[in-house]
């Protein structure tokens, strides 16, 4: 029945996407725009040319990683939404590693910097996992609060302790230097973060689908009582999924630093973490599907500029579409199992 299950998921997700697009069309129609023109611009802005495709894939790279921050713990039954904070912590950790390891040969320094970013994000979200297991603290609210704390701590650091006073436009941290920046994939304008994102999703998929560990995680997520009875180490599993999820988002922050900005600043806080939640839900927490859905979301985000230039729509238009998509998708969950025997 796997084929039928797959077809059901595809049909229901497509229906949700169409419903969201329909309501969004109504929105722009209220502004006196022709919805069909706006749809055409959405496609053109996201996928219409090589240039826009490059932009789409560049946007998709961090979203793949932050989506794993929600998708991985979700398999153990947790609803984690701390990708935004883990990304920020990962970015700051990467900068701190970079300015201290600048003397090492660049490949080694870069590897350690990315490791620092992943470790920072992993520990950050791991705190919520530990609080969940040993104190019974709701992980959804805890990770949301950790997002705000991470941003406040970063603002504090870039406003003083690690501030580069040469940057005058807005407070930013010391730069890691041109030598430690990784470039783009040859013959494209896409940075290497895309490769990191795809590899992370595939590795996670293999781990979850084809190993005993992944099976144990699914048991904990499916039925905690059953997991207790067969003696699974629930605490370790909860901790591991949150740490790994946070590490993925932390890696996204590391990549934003080494491939895009070169320093930490409020430019890291652009909603990749929240887009990741939506992607994880759209992909039904399946790491392989995350790749495709992140590209779709990246396309919507990338087309925001074109919507703004061509129709004068505020840049939040893409946020509205994403929100509608999220609601439609959750409502569509109710359709599962109506036409198919379990």
């Amino acid at each position: 029945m796997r084929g039928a299950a797959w077809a059901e998921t595809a049909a229901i997700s497509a229906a949700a996407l169409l419903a969201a697009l329909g309501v969004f069309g109504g929105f722009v129609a209220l502004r006196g725009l022709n919805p069909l023109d706006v749809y055409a611009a959405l496609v053109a802005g996201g996928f219409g040319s090589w240039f826009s495709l490059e932009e789409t894939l560049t946007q998709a790279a961090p979203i793949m990683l932050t989506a794993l921050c929600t998708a991985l713990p979700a398999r153990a039954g947790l609803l984690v939404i701390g990708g935004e904070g883990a990304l920020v912590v990962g970015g700051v950790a990467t900068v701190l590693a970079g300015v201290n390891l600048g003397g090492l040969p660049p490949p080694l320094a870069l590897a350690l910097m990315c490791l620092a970013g992943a470790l920072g994000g992993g520990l950050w979200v791991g705190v919520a996992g530990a609080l969940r297991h040993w104190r019974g603290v709701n992980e959804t609210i805890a990770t949301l609060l950790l997002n705000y704390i991470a941003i406040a701590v970063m603002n504090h650091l870039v406003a003083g302790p690690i501030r580069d006073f040469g940057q005058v436009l807005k407070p930013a941290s010391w730069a890691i230097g041109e030598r430690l920046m990784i470039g783009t994939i040859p013959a494209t304008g896409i940075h290497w973060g895309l490769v990191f994102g795809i590899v992370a999703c595939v590795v996670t998929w293999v781990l979850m689908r084809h190993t005993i560990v992944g099976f144990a995680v699914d048991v904990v997520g499916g039925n905690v009582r059953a997991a207790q009875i067969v003696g699974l180490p629930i605490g370790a599993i909860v901790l591991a999924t949150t740490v790994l999820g946070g590490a993925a988002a932390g890696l996204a922050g590391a990549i934003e630093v080494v491939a895009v900005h070169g320093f930490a600043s409020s430019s890291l806080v652009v909603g990749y973490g929240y887009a990741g939640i939506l992607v994880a839900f759209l992909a039904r927490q399946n790491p392989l599907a995350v790749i495709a859905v992140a590209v779709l979301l990246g396309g919507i985000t990338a087309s925001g500029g074109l919507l703004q230039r061509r129709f004068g729509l505020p840049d939040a238009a893409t946020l509205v579409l994403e929100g509608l998509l999220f609601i439609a998708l959750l409502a569509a969950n109710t359709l599962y199992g109506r036409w198919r025997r379990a």
Partner: protein
Amino acid sequence: MNGELGAWGAMIAVVGGAIRVSTPYLYVSLGETLTEKSGRVNLGLEGTLVMGAMSGYAIAYLTGSPWLGVLVAGAIGAGFGLLHAVVCSLPRVNDIAVGIALFLFGTGLAFFLGKPYIQPSAPRLHHLALGWWSASPQIRVALEINALFVAGIVLALALRFILAGTRWGLVVRTVGDNADAARALGYSLRGVRTLATMAGGFLAGVGGSFLSLYYPGTWNEGLSSGQGLMAIALVIFARWNPIHCFWVSLLFGAATALGPALQSIGYTSNYYLFNAAPYVLTLGLLVWSSSPRHALLGAPSELTISK
């Protein structure tokens, strides 16, 4: 401003700030208390708050009447509550996830529709000057109290009475504590939860209009910094008791006012770190009030966050 009162000045600023800043917390937490008492969590109140702030400001600007703005903000909040309730009443839909979706949708929609209202200035709500007896300007400023704050206190008392002492309150609590019993008694779970979520959304919308129409008293995209989310955590610490909601809101207001108060007496270092104070406080209180062994004390048993 001036340093002659020194630490006292900071204290007064914190108290005054607490009163000013606590009002949105109070409204959102009272609304969420009512919603959660009916057995459902609305995590989307942050989005409702921002929508309320935007719509209240826009209406006040367009009509010249801030109180009409407050009312419309509440109505739009109720609309968001209705949307949440309708989507959640479908089978196999998780109310926490819907809340996250509405949080993102509400903020996105507010930024989308609110773009034209960032520049113009709307009439603000007036305050009651309760510090007329004092010669100190700081105390006078600290005791400028908005009518919504007073109304919030009355509301907390009223909600406490309704939940504890009336037939309606009993119905809401039955639906939230034992859905099977409520169904057996012939009450509509869907109806009660829809009304409770709409009322909660109304209050969150009003709380949002306070942000844009009184303090800070402007509309922009950085207006709310998670007050709606903190208010939801606050409800857990207040043990779903409206009176406790009031005291905890004041505490949160004080934590939020700490950074600006210290800045006003010239202590500016670590300003951004003090901005983290309310979130750290919330997390700390959450850790303190949770327990690994049993569900949260006083929690409605049908609630998904306490299981």
